[in-house]
């Protein structure tokens, strides 16, 4: 397969739109993923993705697109989850589980009651090839918001995540930082729903970060590698989607998992050598 074959898909406008959204998701999800995995928030993120279903159902019923609904829905979910978890007495895991399943169930019931015409498979697993120009603008807007906040508050988020008590003593507004992170996380998830879908958004969030963590020693490097893996996975997934007519979400997930397996093997084989040579990566 030559370079012409690789470029061939991009003579179509819809492929360029897909490429842009795939890359944007491939950057923002893995970047936030580095915080998510180290704070053990994977389950929480998964719940956020699933909790979008009833909001999407209501939105589509009223004739709004997922993109338009996205940001307000994401913020609502982040605040709700954050509040419930903070004030729960049943334990964080259980509270997340309850919200997770009940919102998802409510979503299906609303779809059925409203008789909404939704392609559920696309919603659950992603259908990147159907992205409109308008969607691209929305995703780009979300990307700018998410990454700006991520960079601007990076030092504070790192301090708070590493040493929450120390950050509080230092006078940081930890409650604000907590909600801020939940909000950008849910914005990134919503912005990626068309790319990877509700069920598989988690894979792009945590698998590249987990892979990066295996082969890096510093947090900043782990973010850089995580983003690189995310971009590779999203572009490869797009190709698989185009050439083999596969749903985009599963394709990207599988590539990300493949990267994880390779880094795992590398970490087992190469890390002892690096340690022996005392190199720092």
């Amino acid at each position, binding site marked *: 397969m030559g370079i012409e074959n690789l470029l061939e898909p991009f003579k179509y406008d819809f492929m360029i739109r897909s490429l842009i959204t795939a890359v944007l998701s491939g950057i923002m999800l893995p970047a936030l993923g580095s915080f998510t995995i180290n704070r053990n928030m994977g389950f929480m993120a998964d719940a956020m993705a699933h909790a979008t279903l009833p909001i999407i159902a209501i939105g589509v019923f009223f004739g709004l697109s997922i993109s338009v609904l996205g940001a307000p829905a994401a913020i609502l979910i982040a605040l709700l989850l954050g509040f419930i978890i903070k004030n729960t007495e049943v334990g964080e895991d259980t509270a997340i589980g309850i919200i997770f399943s009940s919102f998802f169930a409510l979503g299906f019931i609303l779809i059925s009651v409203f008789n909404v015409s939704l392609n559920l498979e696309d919603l659950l697993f992603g259908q990147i090839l159907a992205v409109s120009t308008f969607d691209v603008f929305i995703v780009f807007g979300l990307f700018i918001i998410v990454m700006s906040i991520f960079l601007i508050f990076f*030092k504070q988020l*790192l301090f708070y995540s590493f*040493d929450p*008590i120390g*950050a509080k*003593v*230092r*006078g940081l507004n930890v409650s604000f930082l907590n909600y801020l992170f939940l909000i950008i996380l849910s914005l990134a998830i919503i912005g990626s729903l068309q790319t990877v879908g509700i069920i598989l958004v988690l894979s792009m969030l945590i698998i590249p970060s987990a892979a990066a963590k295996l082969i890096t020693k510093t*947090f900043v490097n782990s973010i850089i590698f995580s983003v690189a893996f995310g971009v590779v996975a999203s572009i490869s997934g797009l190709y698989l989607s185009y050439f083999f007519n596969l749903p985009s979400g599963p394709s990207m997930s599988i590539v990300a998992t493949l990267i994880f397996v390779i880094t795992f093997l590398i970490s087992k084989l190469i890390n002892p050598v690096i340690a022996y040579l005392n190199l720092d990566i």
Partner: protein
Amino acid sequence: MKAKNKIQKENFIISDGCCVQYGNTLALDNVTFKVSEGKMVAVVGPNGGGKSTLFNAMTGLVPLANGSIKIKGLDPDKAKNLIGYVPQKNLINWNFPVSVRQVVEMGLTNNNSLNPFSKKNNKVVMDSLSQVGLLDKIDNNVNKLSGGQLQRVFIARTLSQGADILLLDEAFSAVDVGAQEDLMEIINNIKLDGKTILIATHDINNIEEKFDEVLCLNRHCCAYGDASEVLTKEVMEEMYGSHNQMFKNHTPGNHGRNNGN
């Protein structure tokens, strides 16, 4: 003016009848003491005796149910910049592979730290690290450090912050004996720079050699004063013996008829 300065120096930290309540339990019951500037104070007592709670109250993390704490005349909420805090190891999220540099830089991180690429703090970070003798470890991952080195990194963090008061919670747990001596030497040097230091510790051996003053806590203040004098047999008994009965009728502001403490 001189007299005023002296009063300020002597009343650097004042805890006046400080009470902290968790649910129905009084975690701190009418704790009163006064620390002068530049002193090194050991805070000792059993587990659950209120050492960490006292630090939490001093840093404004928990509200007082009664009484007051003044740091340089300020309420704890207003005194956050003055206090450098070295947390217990188990309160840190060690999943994060942060570097020594990043931890020390946290001392300079406040609500206005909005530039992730700023290098302006580099010199302060390096100066703070050389004070604790760890400049050569600046780019190391903190997960790779020994217990003693970790404490030194967190002390460097309080130095970069420019704090006047250092609170060290369980400073010597997970630090081996040799490293404890190094750590003590570093802390002594910092004290010579005029810092006021409170260390919560379980180690009461040779305490009079290491500290100026000792605060004995078992939910109330069992004794406070000169390190060579306070640890009498009675105080030890009061501190480590069981005396739950004593607190039965205590509520914030009401500390029983017979017990002024």
